[in-house]
């Protein structure tokens, strides 16, 4: 299946002489040299990304990195200078305006950093705005808007005006306005950046809950690395209009493409991003269920043996004293557990803790020594 949204060699250069500047840049001219000569900077340069259906895709970068411009090119609010945006296989370039408007009404809704609520409309009327624009009859659209507001926890504030609501509540209305359309794609432009840290955290959890309920494709713009790591299935790291690296949070952290990416992640608490899967070690001794003799040897050597059956499914741990601790009795980690979450069980267990996949297969083990070593990763 082709990706839901794909961006192909996307460029955006603002300004009067943008065409000349664009062709200079495309033919390989140095961006800094051009900026020094003409004062023109590419907001987005040569970005190619594919965003798959159902993922939370975070575009992360400092202000001025071109991430908001990139988002606005996805729904056509800003036309690209060069390159192509393709939504569900249809290129946006050259599409008639009416069709783009249709796309915005049915396929993607946007949530704004500044909330951008209409001050003379109540929460309910705000939430119904997208449906109103799309021509949905009043009763139906108010019904859907009410449901959307209830889903974000604003069932009691339907008839309040935006100025009567707190910042967090206002952004919930903003979210409900987008959700009411039930769009397959949500575009969130620093949606939580203007909120207090506590409320921001709450909203992030709400978003993850909503995503668990019904999976959408969410393109989330953020300048907050913690937020990006918490929400993102994948993160595209942008700087000066260029995508430095696009990968899952733990990949970005453990395998940074260059020094700039590493620099970005310098302050991130690696232990709460990296999963135990990435630091799993091979156990010293694995026993097939049938293999009786070796168990005695390993017991003699004073080591634990990890017992699996013929399909490599995990059964339990055989202690040196001959005691058998089954998977149900002893501590077992899933591969998606973060290192921080694993600390407690790894430290308190007298032997390396096994990591077992959803299919019951033994993936590896993790010892306290390994755990500590991983924290020195940077």
């Amino acid at each position: 299946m082709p990706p839901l949204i794909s961006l192909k060699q996307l460029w955006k250069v603002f300004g009067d002489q943008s065409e000349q500047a664009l062709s200079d840049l495309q033919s390989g001219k140095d961006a800094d040299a051009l900026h020094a000569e003409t004062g023109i900077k590419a907001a987005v340069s040569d970005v190619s990304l594919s965003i798959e259906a159902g993922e939370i895709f975070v575009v992360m970068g400092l202000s001025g990195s071109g991430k908001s411009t990139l988002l606005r090119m996805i729904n056509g609010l800003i036309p690209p200078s060069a390159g192509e945006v393709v939504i569900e296989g249809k290129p946006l370039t050259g599409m008639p305006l009416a069709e783009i408007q249709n796309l915005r009404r049915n396929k993607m809704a946007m949530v704004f950093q500044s909330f951008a609520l209409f001050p003379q409309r109540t929460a309910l009327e705000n939430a119904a705005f997208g449906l109103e624009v799309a021509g949905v009859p009043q009763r139906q659209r108010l019904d859907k808007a009410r449901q959307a507001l209830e889903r974000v926890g604003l069932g009691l504030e339907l008839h309040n005006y935006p100025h009567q609501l707190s910042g967090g509540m206002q952004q919930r209305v903003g979210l409900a306005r987008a959700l009411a359309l039930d769009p397959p794609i949500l575009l969130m432009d620093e949606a939580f950046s203007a909120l207090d840290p506590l409320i921001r955290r709450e909203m992030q959890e709400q978003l993850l809950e909503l995503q668990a309920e019904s999976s959408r494709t969410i393109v989330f713009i953020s300048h907050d690395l913690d937020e990006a790591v918490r929400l993102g299935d994948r993160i595209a790291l942008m700087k000066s209009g260029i995508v430095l690296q696009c990968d899952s949070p733990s990949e970005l952290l453990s395998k940074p493409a260059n020094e700039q990416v590493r620099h970005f992640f310098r302050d991130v608490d690696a232990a709460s991003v990296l999963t135990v899967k990435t630091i799993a070690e091979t156990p010293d001794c694995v026993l097939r269920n049938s293999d009786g003799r070796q168990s005695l040897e390993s017991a003699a050597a004073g080591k634990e043996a990890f017992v699996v059956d013929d399909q490599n499914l995990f059964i339990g741990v055989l202690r040196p004293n001959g005691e058998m601790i089954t998977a149900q009795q002893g501590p077992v980690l899933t591969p998606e557990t973060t290192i921080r979450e694993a600390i407690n069980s790894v430290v308190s267990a007298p032997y390396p803790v096994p990591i077992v996949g959803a299919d019951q297969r033994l993936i590896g083990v993790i010892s306290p020594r390994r755990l500590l070593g991983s924290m020195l990763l940077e």
Partner: protein
Amino acid sequence: MNLVMLPLFTIVNAGPVGGAMATTVEWLLNHGQPVFLLIESLVNGLTGAAEFILSVPPPWLMAPFVALLAAWRVSFGFAVLSLLGLNLVLFMGLWQPMISTLALVIAASLLALIIGIPIGIFSASRKHFWAITRPVLDLMQTMPAFVYLIPAVMFFSTGRVPSTIATLIFSMPPVVRLTHLGIRQVPKDLIEAGRAFGCTESQLLWKVQLPNALPTVMAGVNQTIMLALSMVVIASMIGGGGLGDVVLRGIQQLDVGLGFEGGLAVVILAVILDRLTQSLTSNELTRKSMPQRIRAFRDLWTAS
């Protein structure tokens, strides 16, 4: 000694600039007659209808009705005040002149709004058009009000019609300016939100821009009505009738009492109209504090 001689000239005839203007007016008179006739009948119909409708309810019905309106939109105190004021007008025997003044104000303002609001909307999104409109508006506002009377008389002779037209020209600038300002002041992120949710340009205008600009547009409506009222008094010189006539007679006969009575009635009408239309500007949702209003008024002159 020579200096004293200078101001002894009296300007009797127009110079070349005025001459060109006079020629233009003459040309229009010779070639635009059908258009003027059409305008005349339209305006005459409108003012006639307004005066007729306003004359139907007798004073004892009209005054309490206005008081009720005042109580609803403004305050009880103001309701009492307007009831007293209207009774005073009735007592001075100026009810009928006041009604015809009001009719003229309503007709002229209505026309000014019908023409002015679309111009304001249109100019908000077109820089070049606004570059032409703005100096014209400046001209319309700074030109002494009496000047409008001359071409109005030439095109439409005397009476209600030229008075309405002169009034409409004089009172139109504020509503154009404030509509333009109101639409330009709609926050960029709201426009963007409208577009992001798939608004067409006309949906953007009706669902986002106009509702947000409404309080400012209403301030323009209020200003236009007040200017119309002030012009209607001047227009009595070309047969506008109404309260202006009373004031004019006071001047001609040097009758201080008559002039004062006419003036007082104008003031009463002005205060009632002002407060009632001002209440349209601010409802519970958009009520502006005094500093905000002052700022908005200042922005009006500094906005480009």
